[in-house]
């Protein structure tokens, strides 16, 4: 990617945050600890950090939009010589939306569901300008055109739910830019979007930064976003700014070990795992899963949503097959179908050559020992009322392994140690663990019955990047040790190189392309794969 940033003259300072400190209102514990930075016109300043680092709190504090439980205890936010913290609430309302505007993570919930999007953008204009009537409407339509909403005249009267996720975020941007603010604060603006849409929205933000000489504060946890979009970057860790630099300097020479770790989470598209040639353990032949669409007086199924539409693939022993696709592509449904948790409408699922689709509950039991699963959300995949020990033991008991209690406990302890947890954790409850630890428990639970295949349904997407790497490393280690195969379902192509031997790309229920990891990532054939790949941020330019 060419880099026009160097040619831009460093803009004037539009917002100066100095010594900002935010504390919990009741305990006084500091969440943000005296941080300072400047936003300059025409520049994107990225504030990076993992969940709980205080980056979102910083952005809300700058707008004085903190929830009641938090309060600003020190510092100032200077915009054009006025300290925002010294203003009355009424004066602050004049600043918000006109001088400083903000866009949020989840556009669907950030837009008022019962107001048309046109009216919502118009409201900002009504608050801060004298525009009314037709002129107002024209202005909104112009804005919609500028942010790339198709059919702006018509979309004016749409409700948020009638727009796609990308379009909703574009409406948010139009709303934020309506009164031509100097500063734009974007809080994880693309996290909820699919990767291809993500790229488009980021490009839009970058273009607008240039064309309107905006000063942008971009809050994100994604180093790829930083790499592709930002001019300057600051790393936030436990409420403190630990490093601040220009993007190039930062990626080439990070000063802190933690920054290094964040950068390492970016994919290295140079090294791949060679595809092992083995006889297939699991084979899918033209698998189809349909959900009925019911209509009419008697609610008869008139048609089917083809969630999985004729997928064929094979996974060898000790091999990892990454199934990549965006939300709604049917990849998770396929995983559930293999587990016999979803009815298969057509095709065959062969495990070691034996068909297992649609077999009865008890006939399936022996296969349950061999095919296991790890889910995306570690918090909802553990019963909050059972101890970790009981959770791991559940499968062993139900599948009739390790029947004596001592044997079982010994096995639980062994498994916990294997996934780098302590044996004392067996007596604890899920809510006492972090997401990363819980995902380790989930791995231990799956391993408990000695499976040959584990279906990993987005096991790392709910985790912070630094933890993600650890969990992926653990999975790779276990594969080497036990020779277990993985069907790895993910939306994130960037984790594929370190993990997968083979890759399949799913779109709208169909497997559009499959092959070895190297083949797919270096020479993608299908345009959709190419689009996915183009959206993946990478270290080397």
């Amino acid at each position, binding site marked *: 990617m060419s880099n026009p940033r160097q040619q831009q003259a460093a803009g004037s300072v539009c917002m100066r945050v100095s010594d900002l400190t935010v504390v919990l209102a009741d305990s006084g514990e500091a969440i943000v600890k005296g941080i300072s930075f400047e936003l300059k016109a025409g520049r994107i300043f990225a504030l990076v950090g993992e969940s709980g680092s205080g980056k979102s709190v910083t952005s809300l504090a700058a707008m004085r939009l903190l929830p009641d439980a938090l309060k600003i205890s020190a510092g100032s936010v200077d915009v054009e010589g006025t300290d925002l913290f010294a203003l009355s609430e009424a004066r602050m309302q004049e600043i*918000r939306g006109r001088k400083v*505007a903000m866009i949020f993570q989840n556009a669907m*919930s950030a*837009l008022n*569901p019962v107001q048309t999007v046109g009216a919502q953008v118009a409201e900002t204009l009504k608050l*801060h300008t004298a525009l009314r009537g037709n002129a107002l409407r024209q202005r909104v339509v112009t804005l919609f055109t500028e942010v790339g909403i198709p059919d702006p005249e018509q979309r004016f009267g749409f*409700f948020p739910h009638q727009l796609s996720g990308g379009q909703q975020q574009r409406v948010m941007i139009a709303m934020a830019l309506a009164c031509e603010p100097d500063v734009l604060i974007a809080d994880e603006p693309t996290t909820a979007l699919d990767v291809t849409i993500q790229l488009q929205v980021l490009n839009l933000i970058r273009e607008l930064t240039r064309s309107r000489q905006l000063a942008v504060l971009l809050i994100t946890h994604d180093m790829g976003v930083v790499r592709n979009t930002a001019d300057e970057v600051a790393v936030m860790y436990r409420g403190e700014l630990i490093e601040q630099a220009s993007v190039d300097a930062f990626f080439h020479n990070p000063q802190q070990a933690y920054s290094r770790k964040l950068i390492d989470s970016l994919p290295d598209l140079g090294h791949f795992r060679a595809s092992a040639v083995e006889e297939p353990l699991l084979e899918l032949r033209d698998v189809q899963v349909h959900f009925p669409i019911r209509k*009419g007086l*008697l609610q008869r199924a008139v048609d089917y949503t083809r969630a999985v539409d004729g997928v064929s693939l094979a996974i060898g022993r000790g091999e990892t097959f990454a199934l990549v696709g965006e939300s709604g592509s049917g990849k998770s449904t396929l995983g559930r179908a293999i587990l016999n948790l979803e009815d298969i409408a057509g095709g065959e699922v062969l495990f070691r050559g034996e068909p297992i689709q649609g077999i009865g509950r008890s006939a399936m039991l022996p296969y349950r020992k061999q095919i296991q699963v790890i889910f995306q959300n570690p918090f909802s995949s553990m019963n909050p009322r059972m101890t970790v020990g009981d959770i791991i033991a559940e499968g062993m008991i139900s599948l009739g392994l390790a029947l004596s209690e001592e044997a079982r406990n010994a096995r639980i302890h062994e498994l916990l140690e294997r996934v780098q947890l302590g044996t004392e954790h067996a007596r604890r409850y899920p809510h006492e663990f972090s997401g990363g630890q819980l995902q380790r428990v989930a791995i231990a639970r799956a391993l408990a019955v000695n499976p040959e295949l584990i279906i990993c349904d987005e096991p790392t997407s709910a985790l912070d990047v630094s933890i993600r790497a650890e969990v992926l490393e653990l999975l790779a280690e276990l594969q080497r040790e036990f020779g277990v195969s993985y069907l790895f379902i993910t939306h994130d192509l960037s984790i594929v190189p370190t993990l997968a031997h083979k890759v399949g790309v799913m779109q709208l229920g169909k497997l559009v392309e499959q092959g070895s990891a190297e083949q797919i990532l270096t020479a993608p054939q299908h345009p959709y794969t190419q689009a996915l790949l183009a959206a993946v941020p990478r270290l080397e330019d």
Partner: protein
Amino acid sequence: MFAYIVRRLLYAIPILIGVNLLTFTLFFVVNSPDDMAVSQLGDKYVTPEAIENWKQKNGYDKPLFLNPDAAGAARLTETIFFDKSVRLFAFDFGRSESGRDITSDVATRMWPSLAVALPTFIVGIGVNICVALMVVMFHGTRLDRGAVFLFVALMSISYLFYIIGGQFLVAKTWRLVPISGFHAEGQVWKFLILPVLVGVVAGIGAGARWYRTLFLEEANQDYVRTARAKGCSELTILFRHILPNALIPILTGVVVLIPSLFMGSLLIESFFGIPGLGSYMLDAINSQDFAIVRSMVFIGSILYILGLILTDISYTWADPRVRLS
């Protein structure tokens, strides 16, 4: 939409059949017509002939479900079940145990009921929303906490005390309106003010507290933060963003009650002597007139099902996200 309503109406049929079977079982199987005759006649006059007479007079001298003596369709129609239950579907309510025509009674009595229930309903919702909005404006302050405590306290007072208290203060001590009664001609409003007032006041505690929760739930939504980031004032946010969204659950929560307003209120009507369906039911219960009770159960069920359908329709009307299918 049309197909949806038709389907809901069809679904109402098995429910009404269920209601009828249940009431029929309660009234005729648990207690046989003989038992009813004994309890209606009183212990003194119980002779087999008297029982037979009573049964014949009131139409209980047929078999329950199947009449073996009759021929053809009459085997089914010449039964108590057909007489007392199936006819309800044709809105033929028959006669009460005391010989009055139930259908015409219902037709005349529903208007006084409505005259009390409808204003109570509308004014009540308005008052509750206003009170809740005022409290929400002071959210997080001592005033808010005090108001919530007051709501809970108001909820903890029995409805009976609201009525008794209202009659004692407004009608007896201050002599502003008559204690009870209802004259259709002339100054009806004089008789309506107190029952409506009592109904509204009694509902404030629970209503305003519920609406407050709904408002606060909406106030925690992301779009409220967006509105703030736009520069909206708190009042604008409350009235332009929170209120329209919170009205959806409020509306759909109360719409189910609208058809049932015809049924009136048992307590209000009996205390204030209003000749509506509420007092009709109460009199029927007290005189153990099961024919009336049965008819009212049937009417009540129909109105409730109607309310459910109206609720669904109101959803599509109030919430752009909802489409019926």
